[in-house]
């Protein structure tokens, strides 16, 4: 077993007197689809923001290792620095660049990690044009991959919810990440879109070799997709294991699954 992709040790994150994450330890193994579940307010998104450098936990350590030989200590690094190290993410309420077309959204992701070249951009030098073309090809490839090629020219804010989710995934993939962090990818999508999304996430891992870490409320999706899960409650990890182990864990049933089932019924109404 090589070193894990993400190695999170004893992370504690506080906002004033509120402890959002309490001594969280977890690891994300290379190539796996890992899920973090937990009731509302359990600290899932805080964990995501800590992993991507948006928040800065007061205690503990987070190490991201892209290829097993270049460990990066995430805490204290800026979000863009963590992103260029190979971490892509989506957001809970999807965050597109609303006035850009779907194509431009993905292209922005594809070229963000390329060099600087402001002079080249001014005079449109050969290197710039080659880079443009490469980004165009990559963006097109990814739009096709997520099945949005017909909507390439649609302004992203007029896409429907499911399409936006897929577009966000394509934009994240455009940065050539090692890991893709998905924050509630199925929120606001309808049942058929959910099936498509599950399929897409699996394909991202299988065909592109990108590891997946996801937060999700939809238990059906999580249980069918994830290979391993962590359960958070009140900022602490209360369980870890395969879907079957989690289903059978009494602490989880008490803290989360019961409540989530009730929640699902409410949603389904």
């Amino acid at each position, binding site marked *: 077993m090589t070193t894990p992709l993400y190695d999170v040790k004893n992370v504690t994150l506080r906002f004033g007197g509120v402890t959002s994450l309490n001594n969280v330890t977890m690891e994300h193994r290379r190539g796996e689809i890992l899920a973090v579940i937990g009731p509302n307010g359990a600290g899932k998104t805080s964990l995501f923001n800590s992993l*991507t450098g*948006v928040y800065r936990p007061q205690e503990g350590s987070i190490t991201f290792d892209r290829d097993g030989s270049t460990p990066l200590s995430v805490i204290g690094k*800026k*979000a*863009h*620095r963590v*992103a*260029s190290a190979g971490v*892509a*993410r989506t*957001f809970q309420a999807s*965050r*597109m*660049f*609303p*006035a*850009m*077309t779907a*194509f*431009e959204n993905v*292209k*922005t*992701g594809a*070229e*963000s*990690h*390329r060099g600087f*070249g*402001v002079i080249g*951009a*001014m*005079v*449109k*030098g*050969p290197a*710039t*044009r*080659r*880079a*443009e*073309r*490469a*980004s*165009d*090809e990559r963006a*097109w490839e990814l739009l096709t991959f997520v099945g949005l090629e017909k*909507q*390439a*020219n*649609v*302004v992203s*804010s*007029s896409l429907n919810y499911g399409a936006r989710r897929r577009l966000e995934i394509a*934009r*994240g993939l*455009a*940065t050539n990440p090692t890991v893709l962090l998905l924050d509630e990818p199925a929120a606001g999508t309808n049942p058929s879109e959910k099936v498509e999304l599950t399929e897409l996430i699996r394909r991202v891992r299988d065909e592109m070799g990108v590891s997946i870490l996801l937060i999700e409320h939809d238990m059906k999706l999580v249980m069918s997709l994830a290979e391993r899960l962590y359960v958070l409650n009140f900022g602490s990890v209360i369980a870890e294991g395969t879907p079957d182990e989690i289903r059978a864990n009494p602490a989880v049933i008490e803290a989360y699954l019961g409540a989530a089932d009730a929640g699902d019924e409410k949603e389904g109404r």
Partner: protein
Amino acid sequence: MKNFFTSPLAKRIGAMVALVATIAVMTGPPGDPTHPMAGFTGSFTERVSFFGLFPAPRGVLFAALGLLAAGVVLMYRRQAQPSVAKLRDKVVPQYHALAAKKPVRGLWYTAVLLVAIVLPHVVTDPFWQSAMVSQIAIYTLLAIGLNVVVGFAGLLDLGFVAFYAIGAYVTAWVTGALPVPAPFHHVIDAFWAIPVAIVFAMIAGVLLGVPTLRLRGDYLAIVTLGFGEIITIFANNLYGITGGSTGSKQIPHFSFHLGSLKYLWGLDPVPYYYLTLGFVVLFLLIFSSLEHSRVGRAWVAIREDEVAAESLGVNPLKYKVMAFAIGAASAGFAGVMTAGQSFFISPSTFTLAFSINILVLVIFGGMGSIMGVVIGSLVVQTISMYLIHTPPAGFQNSDLYIYLGALLIAMMIFRPAGIWPSKRRRREMTPATLEGEAQ
């Protein structure tokens, strides 16, 4: 035949001919009020030395220079031809259709440029000839520069005048027109002050940008406003360095010496007009490629959603500082033009009202739209100059801002995105029409 006129090759040749002709006219002899076209025709018929070999008409010299430039460009283009097939054309026809510029638009631009070239030979009134340089062309340069900061990167800069002042004072400094001696006691030409002033303005932009661009919106506006005031106060109070409120000594006119090419700009505003026009066109080309490049898209991304942009690895601070430095450089350049043309500068020019004036041009034309900003500058500055030249009864120069204010309010009501808004800004401001643009 029709295909030829719209082919890239024809466009390149056309652009080259236009460029060479513009340079020829720009550097040619000035006309005079009695023979308005003399300068224009003289630019091509005047006999000059052909690279020091033999005398020839200027037209021949510039045709040779044009051929040389065309050859260089063609070689460069051939080299640039990527080995990958033109994949974008094949796989993204829709995208290509969106990005393709209509040939009609190119014709329009050429026509406007031709009008601009002929204009000083038609408008011979000395007031307007001088206003065309110092109040319209230079303001257009400034507005194009501020548009990079405000329109592209979305940063509200109320101290833009600071960089303009830096450009002007650096010019005065290197030409020996300030109480402090020129650097290394070596006085240089106002023309060669251009690169020096641009570098100084960029440094000032970076120095101001790095600490302050972490701020957002209103806070940034306040800090830049303060910076503008600081520079003006420095200019006023550092008597021993800047000459204080009395301003600089006489700044020599532009002159250009390079090999057999030699030109001296004198009191006549027309040659300055051509020089500034040439640089306006150059800045337009550079900034419009910048807008449609990776850098331009990064600016849009940061403007629309900074958190999302950062999650893609875009460093917001880096790109904001870059926008600031580019804007500062063009303001610094405009400062050189002003200093060289008016041969005297004093702190009373560099006021907050000046920054606001430039901002009005940008907002009026349409933030983020280069052509809009040019139109905005032309319209607003022409109105201002008209009011000053032929004032209505009881009009005083200080009343100008009442008129500009009224104009701006009317704009905000009827066309909030500006006269000629950019496609993207329009999408940002009117989400209701988005469905119509979707295909």
